[in-house]
C-alpha cells in the first residue's frame, strides 16, 4: 500500500517526467571508524565498532577485530574495554565488571583502529525525570472486537512527569505487556505466558506527529511536545488478544531521560526520509570526532502495572 501511494505521488509530480540511471561524481569517502554505544546506569558500556562504507558498497560492513577501546573520566584513564562475541560473527567491546557508568559523570571514549584516525566522543547519563506511578482500573478498560475472532483491549494511560526540566526535555518511552495464555478460562488453567510483547498505542494527532519511532527500540518524544509546559503524555494502549484463550496481565512502561547526544542522533535518523525522491533529509547528528556514530547516555526506569481482570 505504502509503495503504491508513493508511486502515485511521484506520478503526480513527475507525470511528464522521465527517470533514468546516471552515474554522478561523488566525492571519495575514506572508510571511517563507526562507534555506537548507548549506556545507562547499572549496565556495562558496550560499544559496537564497525567501518563505514560507500553508499553503493553492497558488501557486509566490516567489523574490525584489532581495536583499542578506552574510557576516561576528566582526562584520567577509566577502563580499557575488552572484546566480546556478539550476534553472528561480530564483536563488541565491553567494560569491566566494576566499571559501570554512573549518572552525572562525563565519560570519554577513544577508539583506535590501526590505519584509521582516532575516534573520540563524550557523553553522560542525565538526571532521571520519572513519571508518576499510576494504577489501571477495571473501569478504564475498553474491549472491542477487531475481526477474525480477536478482541482488542484499550487502556487509556497518562504518563505524567513529576517534574519538567526547564531545558533538555529529551525523553523516550516504550510500552510492552505480558500475555497470559490459558488452556482453559473456566476454570482458569494457565498454559504459558508471552512476555514483553511490544504494545501499540493510539493518541491524538498532535501527539502522534511529535513521536518518532527509532530503531533502539523506543519512541522518541519530540522536545517540542513539552513547549507549552505540559507534563503529561496521553496514550491509549492497544492490546489485541484471543478472548477464548488469552488475557493481558501486565503492562510495562519504560521511561527514559536522554542525553542530548542520544536525542539529536536519533531525531536526525528519523528525518532521513528513507532516501526517497524529493525528501528533504537532515544531516545526521554525529558526536564522534574522527569517526562516525553515537556515544550517548540515558537513564531509564521501568514501571510494571498490573492489568485488572475484566
Amino acid at each position: 500500500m505504502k509503495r503504491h501511494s508513493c508511486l502515485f505521488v511521484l506520478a503526480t509530480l513527475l507525470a511528464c517526467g522521465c527517470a533514468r540511471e546516471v552515474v554522478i561524481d561523488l566525492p571519495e569517502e575514506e572508510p571511517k571508524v563507526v562507534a555506537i554505544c548507548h549506556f545507562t546506569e547499572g549496565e556495562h558500556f558496550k560499544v559496537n565498532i564497525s567501518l563505514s562504507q560507500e553508499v553503493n558498497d553492497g558488501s557486509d560492513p566490516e567489523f574490525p577485530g584489532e581495536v583499542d577501546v578506552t574510557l576516561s573520566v576528566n582526562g584520567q584513564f577509566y577502563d580499557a574495554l575488552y572484546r566480546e562475541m556478539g550476534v553472528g560473527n561480530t564483536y563488541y567491546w565491553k567494560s569491566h565488571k566494576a566499571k559501570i557508568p554512573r549518572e552525572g559523570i562525563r565519560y570519554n571514549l577513544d577508539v583506535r583502529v590501526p590505519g584509521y584516525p582516532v575516534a573520540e566522543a563524550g557523553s553522560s547519563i542525565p538526571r532521571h525525570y520519572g513519571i508518576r506511578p499510576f494504577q489501571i482500573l477495571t473501569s478504564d478498560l475498553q474491549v472491542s472486537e477487531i475481526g477474525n475472532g480477536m478482541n482488542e483491549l484499550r487502556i487509556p494511560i497518562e504518563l505524567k512527569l513529576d517534574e519538567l526540566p526547564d531545558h533538555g526535555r529529551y525523553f523516550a518511552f516504550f510500552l510492552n505487556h505480558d500475555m497470559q495464555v490459558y488452556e482453559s478460562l473456566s476454570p482458569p488453567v494457565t498454559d504459558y505466558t508471552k512476555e514483553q510483547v511490544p504494545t501499540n498505542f493510539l493518541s491524538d494527532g498532535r501527539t502522534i506527529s511529535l513521536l518518532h519511532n527509532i530503531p533502539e527500540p523506543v519512541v522518541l518524544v519530540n522536545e517540542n511536545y513539552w513547549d507549552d509546559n505540559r507534563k503529561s503524555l496521553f496514550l491509549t494502549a492497544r492490546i489485541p488478544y484471543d478472548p477464548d484463550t488469552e488475557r493481558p496481565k501486565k503492562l510495562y512502561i519504560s521511561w527514559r531521560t536522554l542525553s542530548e547526544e542520544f536525542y539529536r542522533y536519533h531525531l536526525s535518523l528519523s528525518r532521513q526520509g528513507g532516501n526517497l525522491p524529493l525528501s528533504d533529509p537532515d544531516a545526521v547528528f554525529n558526536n564522534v570526532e574522527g569517526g562516525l556514530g553515537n556515544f550517548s547516555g540515558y537513564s531509564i526506569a521501568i514501571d510494571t502495572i498490573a492489568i485488572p481482570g475484566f
Partner: protein
Amino acid sequence: MSRTLFVILLLAQLAGIAGAQGIVQRRTDFSCENCRPGEALVRLSRETGINIVFSDRLFEGCSAASWNFRQVPAVEVLDRITACARVSYRVVGNQVVFFSFVERHSISGYVEDAETGERLIGAGLLLLNGSAHRAITNEFGFFSLREEEGEYRIQASYVGYKPLVKDVSLREDRKLQIRLEPDTRLREVVISAGQSGDARERRSGSPRYLNLKEMRRLPMPGGEADLLRQTALLPGVQTGADGIGGLHIRGGNADQNLFLLDDVPVYSPSHALGLFSIYNPSTVSSVKLWKGDFPARYGGRASSVLDVRTREGNMHEYKGELNTGLFASSAVVEGPLVEGKSSFLLGGRMTYFEPWVNYFSKRGNLLTFSGDDVRYRFYDGNIRLNYTLSDRDRVYFSYYRGGDVFKNDFEQSYNDPKGFITDKSRLATDWGNSIAALRWNHLLRDNLFTNTTVRYSRFTYQSRLGFRSDIVYPNGKTYELANYGQLYRTLIRDWSWKTDFTWYVSAPLTVRWGASWTSHNFQPGVITANFLQPGQTGSNVDSLASILLNNEKLGARETDGYVEGEWEFARHFRLEAGLNTSYFQVRDADYTVFQPRLRINRKGGGGWSQWAGYHRTAQFLHQIGTFNISLPFELWVPSTAKAPPEQVDQYSFGTGKQAAGWNWQAEFYYKSFNRVLTFISSGDALYTGGAVDASGWEDRIASGTGTSRGIEITAEKLTGKTRGGVVYTLSRSDRLFPDLNSGRPFPYRFDRLHDLKITLRQELTDWLEADVIWGFATGNPITLTGVKFSHESVEGEVQREVFFYTEVNGYRLPVYHRLDLAFNARWGHGNVKHALQLGTYNTYNRANPFYLYIDAGSSVKGKAIQFTLLPLLPVFRYEIKF
C-alpha cells in the same frame, strides 16, 4: 539669553510686516488721465512714497484709462489700476512687488486603447514643453498632472501603440480621454524618457513591466504562452527545473511572492505543479514585478510582488480570439454591454493533456505497471465586467476560477506464495483557486483618485485515495487483504476590503494612502482515513465513520494601513518613501509590524541613472510542506505564537545607462531573512497520497534566518531588426536553522551561483521573426549521502543501515542549460488577424536533472536515479483574432 534674543527678533519682524502692510492701507488721493497701468503705478509711487516694483510686460495687454480717487486706501488704488492684467502683488519689506498671477490647473483623465476603449495601465505622459513633467497611468489607466496656465503639448505613449501628441490649452481644469492607436506592425521598441511605465522604470530598475506581446512570441512548452516563464527570464528570478518549485526572487522562498490577480492575492499561481501559470495570456492587460523593493501600498509577502491585471473588454465592438497549442486551447470573447459605457470579457482555457501524460508516463520508469490509467487536465475561466457610472465613477467585477484534476487508477495482479493477489487503487486529486473582486473607482477631485475593492480568494487541495487488495487462495476462496480509504483536504479562504487614495498634489509630488482588512480562514490539512466495509469504495470514504487525525480550523484577521509619497526634486532626483503598518491577530497571538520603504533615484545626463533603496517587508502567512518546494498540497498556515511572522530587510543599489537603443543595468542587493520557516518532516507524507499530516504543525516547523546577496547585470538591445538581451545574476543564498544541519548554515535549496539568460529576436521579414532563448545555471543544491554505516545494538535486536547525510544541500546537481527556438509569423486582412508559432523547447534535448538520489541498491559507485522533467518538445500555437 538666546530665547530673549529670539523673542526680540520675532517682535521686530512682526513690526516690520505690520509697517509694510500699513503702507498699502494708508488713504490717499490719486488721479491720472489716460494713463497706462505702468505709468499710473510710477506716478502713484512718486506721490505716495510707496516703493512699487513691477515689470511693464505684466501689463502688455492693458490699454490706457483714467482714474480719480479721493481718500481711498492705497490697496484699492493698486487693485483698480492693475485690474486689467492677471497680476498679484506682495508686500516685501517696505516694497510692493507685482508679479504675474498664474493659476494652476489639473490635466487629468484616462489613456485608452482607441479600438477597444480599454484603459491602459502604465502608459506614459510627457509634457513636451514647459516643465517637462511626466506621469504614468495607474492600475485603472488614470493620470493627473497639475500645471500652470498655458499652452502645452502632451505626448502619450505605450509599448505597442502609436505615440500620440496632443495640444492642450490649459485655462481651467481639463479632463482628457487619450485614445492610443495600436501599432499592428512588428515595430521596434523605441525608448525615450517618459515614453511609458516600462521605459521609465527601466531607468530605475524597479518595477519591471512585462511586455505581453513579447510573451506570446517566446518559445514555451507546447506553445503555451506563460507569463511566469517570462518573469523567470528577468535577473534575480529563479525557478526550479522547468518551473516546478515555484519562483524564487533574490533567494526568497516561493511562498514569499505576492501574486495578485486584479488586486486579489492568489495562493497557487501555477497549474501542473508549476509547469504553467494560471494566468491565461489572452485575458491579461498588464504585469508588473517588484523584486523586494515594492512600495508601501503592497504588503503581506516578504520577497516580491507580481501584480497582474486582466483586460476590461472591448467597449465598442464584439471581438473574439482563439488560441490553440499542443497542450491547451483558449478562447476569449469580449464586447460592449452598453456602447461606450460598459463591457464584458469572458475567457476560458482547457487542456488536453491525457495523451501526453500517458505517453511520458509510459516512457518513464515509474508508471510501467499494467492497467495504469493516468488522467490529468487543468482549466481556467475568467469573467470581467465593468460599467461607467459617470465620468467620475466606474465599477468593475472580476472573477477567476481555475483548477487541476489528476486521476490515476491502478490495478496489478501477481502470484504470491499464498495465492493470486489483485491490488486496485484509485487516486483522485483536484486543486485550484477561486478569486473575485468588486471594485469601485471614484474621482473625488480631478487630482484625488480613490478605489475601493471587496475581495475574495480561495484555494483548496483535495485528494481521495482508495486501495483494495484481494487474494484468491489455491482452493478458490477469495479473501480481502486490505480495504482502505483516505480523504485529504486543505483550504485557505480570504474575504477582504481595501480602499486606496491617490492624491496627485502636483506634478512632482504624488501621495498615496489606504487601508485594508482581511479575514483569513485556514483549514491546514484534514486527513480522514478508515478501513472500508465490503462493498464500499474510496469515493464514499468521507461519508463513513473515520479516524480524524486533524480537523483544525483557524481564523485570523489582518489590518493594514499605509502612506507613501513619490516626490521629484532638484530636477534629477525622485524619492519614494512610505510606511506600511500591519496588525495581525490570530488565536493565541497578535503582531504589529512596521515596514518602512525608501528608494531614491537619480537621473543623470547621457542616459545614466542611479538608485538605492532600503525595504523592510513581512508576512504573516506561510506555506509549509514535506518538500518545501511550494507544491499545491503544501499547507498555508498563519503566524501564531509558535510561528512568528517572517521579516526581510533588503538593501539595494544600482546603476544603469540607456542610450542608442541599448539598456545597461547593474544592481546589487543584500537581503537578510529573519524568522524564515520550514516544515520538518520525515518524508512520510510520500505515503499519504501527497497529503501532509498537519497535526501539530506548529510544533513541527523550524524557525531560522538566512541571507541572500547578489549582483544582477542586464544588457538589452531594444531597437533594430536584431534585438535581445543578456541577463546574468551572480548570487549566494543560505539558511541557518538551529534545528537543522546540526545548527550549521547551508545553501538555500534554490541557491545558484551563476544564472545566465540570453534572448534573441531576429526580424526576418515584415511578417516573420525568429526567437531564441538560451539559459544556463549552476545546478541546485540537494542533500545526498555518500556514506553508510550499520547502526547495530549489541544484543542484535536493532540493526539498521544508516545513510549518513553529512551536509544539508551539500551536493550540486549538474548544471542546467536549455535552448528554445521559435519562428513567429503574423498575417491578416481587415479585422481578422492570424499568428502562428512553430519551434522547439529544449532543442538539444538536454536531460536537465530535476532531482536525483543515490541508488543504494547498486554496486556502481555514484549510481543514481535522475529525474528529468521536460525533454525536447515541439512548440506550436495558432492564434486567430476577429
